């Protein structure tokens, strides 16, 4: 039942854009029509997924395929869990798109955008229910390629083209790695179907090869350090709702792949868990550090995706180690944190990208240093963005905290129980704390630079609040963030149904937490009302400027100056480039200051390497300089070379050598 619903939903979403195109130019309402189709099908999909969460795994054959057998698609709790954000963001993003990328404003691209939006969502759905190499890869590539087309929406900008190319190459590397993985899988197991490998069937070497191929292939898609190089550019240059689904949902497909592979492979060696944990910590820390150094709001959010993927991977690492040392509790806590953070991140990251999108939509700018004071012009967006910011900083009483709580406890509980292997986990906890603090700092910076104070530059006026179609999705997402944050115990049931252990609530009494956070929220509201409406009306005045005569809005602390402290602290990794005019005389005239940070992997390693390779290859050009004589010579050489293989050297020349 559930699977059928989901198939219907996937097909519906895939066809939604086609409908719009078939309608032709004349019809005005086709964008709305497409959106409605997407909405209906995603609601169906959500229903199906929720049914699937609590029913046991199903799987059955699907359409004919050359030279393969077995179950092509199926549904289990894990797939259902990952399907929910897909359909949720897929639906909401479609609504948002109506306002953000109006057909009337972008005649050229809006049709294409909707078409490939449908394909993207459908592709993710397909890969999630795929139980067979081919259907999985089919969905995978459908997702990757439509994402590429979506990133390329504004291809007149050279910036966009560059990042699109990088994304395309990156995603193809991951695809080819998966080719290798599945080829090896088939070589090892002799089957194309995802069936768990029993203990002790394969050699450790083979298992390691499989795991590392999967880690690279899926890690690239998930954007874990150092394979994140494609992510900031692509997510920054895509339209905002596309960025939302890319970093909110598409990255999670990599995580899904890792979890799936983890389920298929037998008990992992401690190496795997350790590597995942390390990679997770590095991604988390460096992700947030690079985020703080950004001036571009969308690049910043993109780097935060790297950070959150890091947190998710930390949870996953705990689970892997739990399997290694046969500690069901670790697995439970780790997986709970990992999965819940997958949901949370897809909620608040999409919310934040939607918010950034509304800012972009009304100001047309992405540079943080020139914004400010938008909170008064677009209060609703500001509120939702604030909720998203608090949530992503993992601060109670919102959802980000809950998932991090699971992970913290997973990290620290072994220490409490005096487990011999606890040290590595324990040392990760402060890293997570640091990530949290830095994230909070970063979002204070973003929020205050964009929405607080007053405009730092004249050219971002006029600013208008976004239309309803953009606000409603944000409202829904914000509400979900608050709901999960305040009533986590209900989500816990879902998590427990996936990890098949009913211990989370015994370990962490979330009911108490939920009770108090509820009380907390209420008391905030009460106190706020009291403050706001007390009899003594406040008196308006200028901001205290220490008696300076002519304060201007450009005297405010900018995002850059805010991040300076961190930039100094992490200079060893950031290598930020600063261009400023020298102050030579006492009364300097016009001075400029400009600083930017290069991408760690892409700009410092990959691009030079790529150029070197190109020059190395162009050296071979000399063998093809157009002289037909040489070409014939090559043929002769080939013949003689191959013929030389036929010569039975021993029986010809040994006689001479002998005597």
């Amino acid at each position: 039942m559930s699977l059928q619903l989901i198939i219907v939903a996937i097909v519906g979403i895939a066809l939604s854009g086609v409908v719009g195109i078939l309608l032709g130019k004349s019809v005005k309402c086709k964008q709305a029509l497409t959106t409605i189709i997407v909405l209906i099908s995603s609601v169906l999909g959500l229903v199906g997924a929720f049914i699937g969460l609590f029913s046991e795994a199903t799987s059955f054959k699907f359409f004919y395929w050359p030279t393969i057998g077995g179950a092509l698609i199926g549904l289990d709790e894990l797939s259902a869990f990952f399907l929910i954000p897909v359909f949720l963001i897929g639906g909401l993003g479609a609504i948002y798109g109506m306002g953000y990328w109006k057909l009337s404003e972008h005649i050229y691209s809006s049709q294409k955008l909707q078409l490939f939006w449908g394909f993207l969502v459908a592709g993710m759905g397909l890969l999630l229910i795929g139980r067979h190499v081919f259907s999985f890869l089919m969905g995978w590539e459908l997702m990757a390629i439509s994402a590429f087309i979506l990133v390329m929406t504004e291809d007149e900008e050279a910036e966009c083209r560059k990042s699109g190319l990088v994304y395309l190459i990156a995603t193809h590397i991951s695809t080819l790695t998966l080719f290798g993985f599945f080829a090896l899988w088939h070589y090892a197991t002799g089957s194309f179907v995802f069936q768990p490998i029993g203990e002790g069937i394969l050699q450790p070497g083979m298992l390691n090869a499989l795991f590392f191929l999967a880690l690279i292939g899926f890690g690239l898609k998930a954007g874990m350090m150092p394979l994140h190089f494609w992510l900031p550019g692509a997510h920054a240059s895509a339209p905002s709702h596309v960025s939302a689904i890319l970093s909110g949902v598409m990255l999670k497909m990599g995580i899904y792949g890792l979890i799936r592979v983890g389920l298929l492979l037998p008990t992992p060696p401690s190496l795997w868990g350790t590597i995942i944990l390390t990679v997770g910590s590095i991604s988390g820390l460096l992700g947030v550090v690079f985020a703080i150094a950004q001036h571009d709001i969308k690049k910043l959010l993109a780097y935060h995706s790297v950070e959150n993927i890091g947190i998710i991977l930390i949870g996953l690492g705990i689970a892997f180690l739990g399997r290694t040392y046969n500690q069901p509790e670790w697995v439970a806590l780790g997986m709970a944190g990992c999965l819940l953070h997958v949901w949370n991140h897809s909620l608040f990251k999409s919310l934040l990208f939607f918010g950034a999108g509304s800012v972009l939509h009304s100001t047309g700018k992405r540079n943080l240093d020139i914004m400010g004071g938008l909170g008064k012009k677009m209060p609703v967006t500001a509120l939702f963005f604030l909720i998203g910011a608090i949530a992503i900083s993992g601060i109670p009483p919102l959802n980000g905290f809950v998932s991090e709580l699971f992970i913290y406890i997973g990290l620290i509980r072994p220490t409490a129980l005096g487990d011999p292997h606890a040290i590595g986990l324990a040392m990760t906890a402060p890293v997570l704390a640091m990530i949290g603090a830095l994230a909070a700092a970063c979002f204070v910076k973003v929020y205050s630079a964009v929405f607080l104070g007053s405009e730092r530059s004249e050219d971002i006026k006029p600013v208008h609040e976004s239309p309803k179609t953009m606000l409603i999705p944000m409202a829904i997402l914000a509400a979900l963030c608050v709901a999960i944050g305040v009533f986590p115990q209900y989500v816990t049931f879902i998590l427990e149904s996936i990890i098949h252990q009913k211990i989370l609530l015994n370990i962490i009494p979330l009911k108490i937490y939920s009770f108090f956070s509820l009380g907390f929220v209420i008391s905030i509201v009460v106190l706020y009302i009291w403050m706001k409406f007390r009899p003594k009306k406040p008196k308006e005045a200028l901001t205290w400027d220490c008696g300076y005569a002519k304060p201007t809005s450009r005297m405010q602390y900018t995002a850059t100056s805010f991040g300076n402290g961190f930039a100094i602290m992490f200079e060893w990794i950031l290598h930020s480039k600063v261009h400023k005019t020298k102050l030579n005389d006492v009364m300097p005239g016009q001075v400029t200051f400009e600083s930017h940070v290069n991408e760690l992997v892409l700009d410092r390693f990959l691009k030079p390497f790529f150029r070197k390779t190109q020059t190395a290859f162009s050296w071979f050009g000399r063998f093809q300089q157009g002289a037909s004589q040489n070409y014939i010579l090559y043929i002769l050489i080939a013949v003689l070379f191959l013929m030389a293989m036929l010569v039975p050297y021993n029986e010809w020349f040994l006689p001479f050598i002998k005597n």
Partner: protein
Amino acid sequence: MINVFNSLLVMILALNLLALGSRSILSVIRIIAIQGILLGILPLILHEGLSIPQVVASLTAISMKGVVIPMVMIHAMKNIRIKREVEPIIGFVPSSILGAVITGSAFLLSNQITVSTGGYENMIIPAAITTILVGFIQLITRYKAISQVVGYLVLENGIYIFSLLLIEAIPLIVEMGMLLDLFVSIFIISIITNHINNAFSSLDTRRLTTLKE
């Protein structure tokens, strides 16, 4: 009989070296024409009992290799006003020495190769290999388009020599077809050579190197 045959083959090999050594294109073409005629005669000697198809085949071969194709090429040369030098990449003497070396080594090599009982083989195979390689030399070490065509002809002749080993295996039609193909290819190539001359006012293939990496 076999002596006649062998002596003819030796003459063919000598013609190879001559072709490598000679300076003017026209004379090279003439040498190849003679070689063609000799080749045409060979099958008639090879078999005592003459059958109609074989006669037809060898007559066609003689007319093609000995007369028609050289005519075509000379005609192509005629209406091209260029200097009739061969212009080798490596000089005449070295290339003819190379040819001699190849000939010798081919004969040495052929002693190693297992051959079926017959007698002609141990002469035919080295001769074929030699001629083919000489053809390659001319293809590789000549700048003039037309002399590359000559090289191609020599190559074909070498293959023809080898085909003498299985004269009864090759049906008449196939043999005819092969000769026809040879003729057509030479014909088209000469046309192209003409175009080359019109376009570049020379037959120097060094001009034909605009298409490259």
